[in-house]
């Protein structure tokens, strides 16, 4: 995996999050507490600053710095979750170059931290189908968009949205949407399995 592509990925992700900050918060206002855009924008902006300041040399180091920064700057639920994902990805990137294995490690990190499984209307419902498609060799913007859109139909059982019960149905999950940005920009940046 190319370290420059990975850095570009982080830059594009930050841009995408910041462009959609208000939208992400609006989604969170509907079924959470309205801060997901603010949280992610604050965190990714700090990631940019950290990457520029430290200019890490390896893919593992980029992921590690990203993960540590997100953990210490985001807070809320998404901070430890995205943070754990990237820290797990860093560990995996130390021993393999496989994007699939790295993303799977990230998902494991999220699941371990949040004690959630697919189908609970969380960011996991973006990560899991994306990894499945990547494994099957058919990951595309469309598969990502489909996964994100599907969270509308799910009833939340984890995170703040779970307090809404049935009323959470019909709304996109904000974390699933921000995770959609993560994978879209991964494709844009040309970070691929080979």
């Amino acid at each position, binding site marked *: 995996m190319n370290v420059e592509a990975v850095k570009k990925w982080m830059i594009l992700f930050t841009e995408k999050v910041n462009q959609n900050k208000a939208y992400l*918060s609006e989604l969170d*206002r509907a079924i959470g*507490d*309205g*801060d997901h855009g*603010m*949280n992610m924008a604050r965190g990714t902006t700090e990631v940019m600053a950290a990457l520029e300041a430290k200019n890490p040399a390896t893919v593992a180091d980029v992921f590690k710095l990203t993960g540590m920064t997100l*953990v*210490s*700057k*985001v*807070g*809320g*639920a*998404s*901070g*430890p*979750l995205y*943070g*754990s994902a990237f820290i797990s990805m860093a560990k995996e990137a130390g021993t393999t170059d496989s994007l699939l294995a790295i993303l799977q490690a990230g998902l494991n990190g999220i699941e371990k*931290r*949040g004690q959630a499984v697919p189908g609970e209307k969380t960011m996991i419902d973006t990560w899991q189908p994306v990894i499945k498609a990547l494994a099957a060799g058919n990951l595309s913007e469309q598969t990502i968009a489909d996964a994100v859109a599907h969270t509308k139909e799910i009833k939340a*059982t*984890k*995170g*703040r949205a*779970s*307090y*809404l019960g049935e*009323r959470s149905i019909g709304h996109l999950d904000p974390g699933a949407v921000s995770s959609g940005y993560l994978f879209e920009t991964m494709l844009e940046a040309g970070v691929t399995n080979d």
Partner: protein
Amino acid sequence: MKKIINQPEEVVNDMLEGFVYAHSDLIERIPETGVIIRKQETPHKVALISGGGSGHEPAHAGFVGAGMLSAAVCGPVFTSPTPDQILEAIQKADNGAGVFMVIKNYSGDVMNFDMAKELAEMEDIAVDFIIVDDDIAVEDSTYTAGKRGVAGTVFVHKILGAAAENGASLTEIKALAEKIVPNIKTLGVALSGATAPEVGKPGFTLAEDEIEFGVGIHGEPGYRREKIAPSKALAQEIVSKLKEAFQFKPDEHYGLLVNGLGSTPLMEQYIFTNDVGSLLAAEGLNVDFKKVGDFMTSIDMAGLSLTLIRLEENKWLDYLNVPTKTIAW
């Protein structure tokens, strides 16, 4: 949004600066953090720490002081503080007897405090914790995030704080925490939503004649919206839900906390307290401890919550009654 603030992004920092300015005799802020820590810590006692998003003032910083918390970690408005901030609090508060964390049951709080615990243990600090889930508005089930932690947390601070001051060990505090938390239950009613300064509009809106039962302290939705009713009727609804949850038995002993959510005047809180008192008396309960006021708010939300604690042991009442040196208890 009409608020006495400067930059919305700076509210927590400005507030903490004002807090430290006003209460420099009791507390200080760990520089560059959201951690408020007590000035004179009793040596060799277990350090009790709590925290969460800001917007619940006087919680949690107002409960830092002798007999309650050793430190409070104040995150951004309605957003859990990060593990490194919590770790700072753990490191500074630890007196060698270990650190006990009181965590409200929200995914974010649980995960961030949990990560901080992992980090602290890497530094050989003994850390344990309790998750408070007193809000009976939310159904508990292994398939959900579980009940939320709300105003009842203040009772946990008070009782564990008194025990820690009394020299209880980390293991003893953990055991006490596990006994009291299932005996603390809360239910709230909102007359208006809360407006977080950076969001700029209320988390939800209610019509001029509408209320909502069972809301959380971050604007999480409740279980029913209905027309505003007299205080007696609100008390009736809330007490009946608590009755069901506790399975009241005559002659049991309880403590109560009527908690204003931010913009409800004391006049209304005392009227409600009066109605609650009559209902509890009618159930044949002994109410040995009473507290009324703003303790765990939701910024400027109008409404209040009722917390009851079943006093299974006399000791718990003693712990509630022992004086503290804090700003807000």
